[in-house]
Every structure is written in structure tokens, then in C-alpha cells.
């Protein structure tokens, strides 16, 4: 018997694609850079060779038309995935996402849906600066009709991708290059139903509830480890699905711990961290809180290019641990 192998997050995404392309002839992938490892890391290596360039379509520099075409193909019954190697460039495609895909079911009286998956990659750091760095997940959670998914683990990267593509609704699937080397032993592929997926407790604790999505969920786990070494017990929750959002697990946790700290890779104002805190606090008696809820987000500035500024711009586990310590003491 061979030892079970570790699979990293990027390879897990590739496994998800391979599974979909093998099992569902109506799946195809369209976007810029799909024939190049430079754009999408190891997450789509050689899929064009395995499944053909007709189903793995590298495209002209047209985020807007490619996204619109994927939406149209979905309306016509296909299960397309449109890939944006950097989320920043996807802003050209907002009409197709927000006005067309998100509203199609409602506008057409529920008789047709745009079951497209928009895969947006957060690709930041490395002195790339303001337009190659953004995490804009909060924007999309504001739109009824869109499902917004952010996997934090390799297993979720694969299985939530499969669930997103099989779902009849438009899904914004956001993965993060900072997670690509995170590895774990993957279970067998299982086709899970996206609409019953939601937040998950990833570490049971008693003194504080740490919440995040995507890379921020990993930060929560890192913070919990730091705090555990100091004797502080943190419960961590990986949000996984940001829209439609079900806060019930977080509410339960905060009722137990009395403290809520939310880490978000976006900005503070009108960001998803605010939504989590509002959803929890409006449902509980304020007296059950032992300290004020806390948002840990980016400073309200575009991403800097200089490495000296990047160090203070991005949130570190140590920063969060210090904030939690302060709120407990």
C-alpha cells in the first residue's frame, strides 16, 4: 500500500477541472492565459492538451466579451467557466456579471438561469501594486442572484469548484495564489450541492471566535495556533460561501465565546467583515459580548508596490494575535 499523497491547492483546482471536463461534456473553460502556466499557476496545467483547445479556450484580450459569452453559453445550457487570472481585470466584465447573469433567473420569471462559473484569482504581493492585487469579493456579495464562494483548503478548492460549475446559478469562485502551496491529503471527489454549503468550524475553542474566508480563513488558523501556545482558546470558522450568507454557525459560536474577530482581505468600509459583524450582533443580546467585535482588514489605501509598504499593508497572523490578546486582557 502506497502512502497517501499530499495535494496542493493549485493542483486540487486542476483535479476539479479534470473531473468536470471528463464527466460533463457541457463544461468548457474560457479566459486569458489558459494555455500558459504564467497566468494561472499550476491550477490548469496541460488541460488544453488533455481536453483540447476547443474546450480550454485561450482568448483575445477581452474580459468583457469573454465573460458575456460564457454567460450566454450558460443560458444556452452549457456549464462554462470563465477564468480571470487577476480579479482586477474582471472589472471590465461587470455588466455581464451583475446585470445579466445575476438577474437572469429573476428577470425571466425563473424559467431560465445563467449557470456560469466566474473564476476570479486573487494574485497580490510581490511588488505588483494597486491594479494587480485586489480582493473584491465583498462587491459581489451585495448582489442577489450571485453565489460567492472562497475556498480556503485544497479539498474545498476542488470540491467547491465542482459544486460551483454544477450549480444552475451564477457563481463567483474566488481562489487565492497565496494558498496555492497549501497541501493536504484529498479525499475521493464528491459532488456536493453548493446551495447547502456554508461556514464550517475548523477549530473548536472557547474564548474568541475568529472568522475569515479564503486566505483569511488560513490566517485565522495560524492565529489560533499562536494563541493556543499562550493558553488562549480560539474557535475558528471558515466562511466558504459568502453569498447567500448563513451566519447561524457564527452566531452560535459567539454566544459561546463572547468575542468576535473577523479577518478580511479586503477594505473595511462596506466590506464583508462588516456584514458578518452586523449579522451576528443584530441577532444576539449585547450583554453576551465580552468585548467589542473587531474587524481586521486592509488599510484604506490601494495596494502599494514597494516591499517596505507591502509589509505594513497586508495583515499578518502576529498582528491579529496581538489584537485578540488586547481584546481579551
Amino acid at each position: 500500500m502506497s502512502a497517501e499523497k499530499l495535494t496542493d491547492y493549485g493542483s486540487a483546482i486542476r483535479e476539479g477541472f479534470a473531473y468536470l471536463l471528463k464527466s460533463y461534456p457541457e463544461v468548457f473553460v474560457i479566459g486569458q492565459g489558459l494555455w500558459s502556466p504564467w497566468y494561472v499557476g499550476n491550477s490548469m496545467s496541460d488541460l488544453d492538451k488533455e481536453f483540447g483547445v476547443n474546450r480550454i479556450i485561450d482568448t483575445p484580450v477581452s474580459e468583457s466579451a469573454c465573460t458575456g459569452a460564457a454567460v450566454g453559453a450558460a443560458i444556452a445550457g452549457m456549464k462554462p467557466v470563465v477564468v480571470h487570472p487577476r480579479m482586477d481585470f474582471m472589472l471590465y466584465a461587470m455588466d455581464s456579471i451583475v446585470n445579466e447573469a445575476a438577474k437572469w433567473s429573476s428577470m425571466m420569471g425563473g424559467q431560465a438561469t445563467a449557470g456560469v462559473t466566474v473564476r476570479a484569482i486573487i494574485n497580490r504581493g510581490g511588488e505588483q501594486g494597486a491594479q494587480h492585487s485586489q480582493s473584491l469579493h465583498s462587491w459581489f456579495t451585495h448582489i442577489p442572484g450571485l453565489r460567492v464562494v472562497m475556498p480556503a483548503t485544497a479539498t474545498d478548492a476542488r470540491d467547491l469548484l465542482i459544486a460551483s460549475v454544477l450549480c444552475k446559478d451564477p457563481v463567483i469562485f474566488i481562489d487565492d495564489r497565496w494558498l496555492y502551496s497549501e497541501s493536504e491529503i484529498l479525499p475521493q471527489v464528491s459532488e456536493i450541492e453548493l446551495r447547502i454549503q456554508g461556514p464550517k468550524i475548523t477549530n473548536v475553542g472557547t474564548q474568541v471566535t475568529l472568522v475569515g474566508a479564503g486566505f483569511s480563513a488560513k490566517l485565522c488558523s495560524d492565529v489560533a495556533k499562536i494563541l493556543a501556545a499562550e493558553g488562549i482558546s480560539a474557535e475558528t470558522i471558515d466562511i466558504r460561501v459568502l453569498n447567500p450568507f448563513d451566519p447561524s454557525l457564527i452566531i452560535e459560536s459567539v454566544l459561546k465565546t463572547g468575542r468576535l474577530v473577523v479577518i478580511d482581505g479586503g477594505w473595511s468600509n462596506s466590506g464583508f467583515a462588516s456584514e458578518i459583524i452586523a449579522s451576528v450582533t443584530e441577532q444576539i443580546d449585547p450583554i453576551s459580548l465580552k468585548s467589542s467585535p473587531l474587524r481586521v482588514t486592509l488599510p484604506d489605501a490601494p495596494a502599494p508596490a514597494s516591499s517596505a509598504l507591502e509589509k505594513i499593508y497586508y495583515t499578518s497572523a502576529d498582528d491579529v494575535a496581538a489584537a485578540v490578546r488586547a481584546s481579551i486582557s
Partner: protein
Amino acid sequence: MSLEYDLRSGSISASKHLDEKLDLQGWVENDLLEQLKMMQLIRFCENKLAEMRRQGKIGGPVHLGAGQEAIAVGISKYLRKSDRIFSAHRSHAHLLALGSDPRALFAEVLGRSTGLTKGMGGSMHLWDQPNGFYGSVPIVAGTVPLAVGAGLAAKLEGSNDIGVVYFGDGAAEEGIVHESLNLASQLRIPVLFVCENNLFSSHMHISQRQPLQSVARFADANGIKNQIVDGNNLLDVQAASEELINFIRSGEGPAFIEAITYRQYGHVDWREDIDVGVNRSSEDLALWKNRDPIRRLSEALISLNSELESEISNQTKELLSLVDLAWSKAESDPFPSPSSLLGTVYSAVSK
């Protein structure tokens, strides 16, 4: 000199080619009578909507296509139920020409649950997929890439169905149209782009918005086969449609029709004399009413066979009462239940 020459030299309305008598030679009389009937049905539906809007019986805006009927009717002759047709805010003609039920259109305009989109869409969001109408929405040019994608889907499925998208000359000023033309051409996607150039976007004449008055130049720029036709001449539209749709179905890639036309009502609602608050030229209106596509076709038919006059007259009466009946039925249809508000945001089925 040709119509195309006149257009490219910049004087669309003045082209005498737009006043030519229809030459029916080579066309089947009974077919043409059917086409005329469809054009009349569309006209009477639009007139009904104009009148009901004037009377305040319709709550929302209606963008009427009276005067533009020959385009949709001519193109639809060569379409199949399995093709994928998309449109925009002025879409009633495109929908009805595919055989959609006027009562369901009226019910939708009235926000009733029996409407084409179950009362959720109104005049500007229509759907009748069983007849090939995949959807219309009012974001200018919003459906252009969608039709490209629906055509791409047909190609990947290995069928020779096509995507079709109707849009206006104003939409040609949106960047997404140019990306879509390039993408469709590069990937040889089976899609027909139909630009109804009615010379106006809202209150602005094309000469106030573009340096040239014909938009087919954008098809040329992207290597897409195209024709410019007199959109008020059914036979012109049909001849171009037959050729270009056959070309697309044979797997050669996309094609583009620019149909020159004019809307008899203003941009929105029932007024003839006003476009969103700006006065329209009464000379232009008179000129173009003289080029009415329905009158041109019926006059050509009657001049060839005078017995058709009474047939057309009877047909007109029947259509008018059909439209009246459809309206009165739609008016007594029920409104959507409150549960449909949240019930249609996400799909009811899992996969």
C-alpha cells in the same frame, strides 16, 4: 449608385433607394401574404401598446418598433425554433416575428403572472425560449456577447443552430460590441449580428454620435461578412438574411446585417412628435412614413394582383380584433404572488 454607396457617403435619409418600389419577382405570393400578416400583427400590437400607454393603462415604459417590422419578419423566415435569439429594449417585433403569443406579451407588459416572464420582467425583459427567443434586456448592448456565447454553445454541441442578436446603432458605440465582433470572428462563432440602424439613439441623431452614418464598417474592421439593406423593404431583408444565415450555418463564422430603418414613435411610449422631451422633425417623420414597410409590401402585392386588396382588408380586420381580444384577456389576468419575489432569485433545482 447603390444604397451602400449612399450610406457610406453619409446621406442615409436622402437615399432614393429607400423609396424604390418592391420587386416581387421570384417570391411566392402566399408567402409574402403571410409575411405581411405578421408585419401587420406586430404593428397592431405596437399601436395597441401605444394607445394603452397613452391612456395610462400600462405602468411602465414601452419602446415600440412600429415602422421596423420588415427586419424581424424578414430574418425570422430563415430561423429555426432551436436558434438562440437575443434582443434589447425595443424587442416586441423580434419576439412576435418568431410566433410568440401577443396575449402573453401584453400580460407581461401589464405585469401579470401569465406573462412571458411571469410578470417579473415587463416590456423590457422578455423570454420565449420554446420559440427561440432567449431573452431581451435593456442594458444597451448587454445581450450582444450573450448571443455570441449562445452561438459558441451551438458550435461546441456540434449543431448548426445559430445565435442572433438585434441591437441598435447606439449599441454600436458600446465597447462590448467591438470585443464581441472580434471574438466571434476570431473563434468563427455562428452568430448573426443584426444592427437596426434607425438613425436615432434616444433623442440623438447618428450624425451627432458617430463620424460616419453606417455601422457596418465595424463588421468590416473585424473581418465579418456583412450587408447593408433597406430595412423597410422586406425583400431586401429576406435576400440578405437567406444568404448570410446559410453562410453562418455552413460553419463559416459570424455575419452582420445593417438594416436602415426609422421608428415611427419616439424613443419611448406613444408620442410621435417627441423623443425623451426633444422635438422630432415632422419632415423626417413624413418622409419615413412614406417608406412604411407594410404599405410598400401591400401596395406591391395589390399592384401585381388587384384581388388581394379585399383579402388584405379582411386580414386587417381579423388581426385588429385578434389584438383587441388578446389585450382584454391579458387585462383580466392575475398579478404574480408575493412569493415570486424571492422565489426566482436562485434556481429551484440543484443541478
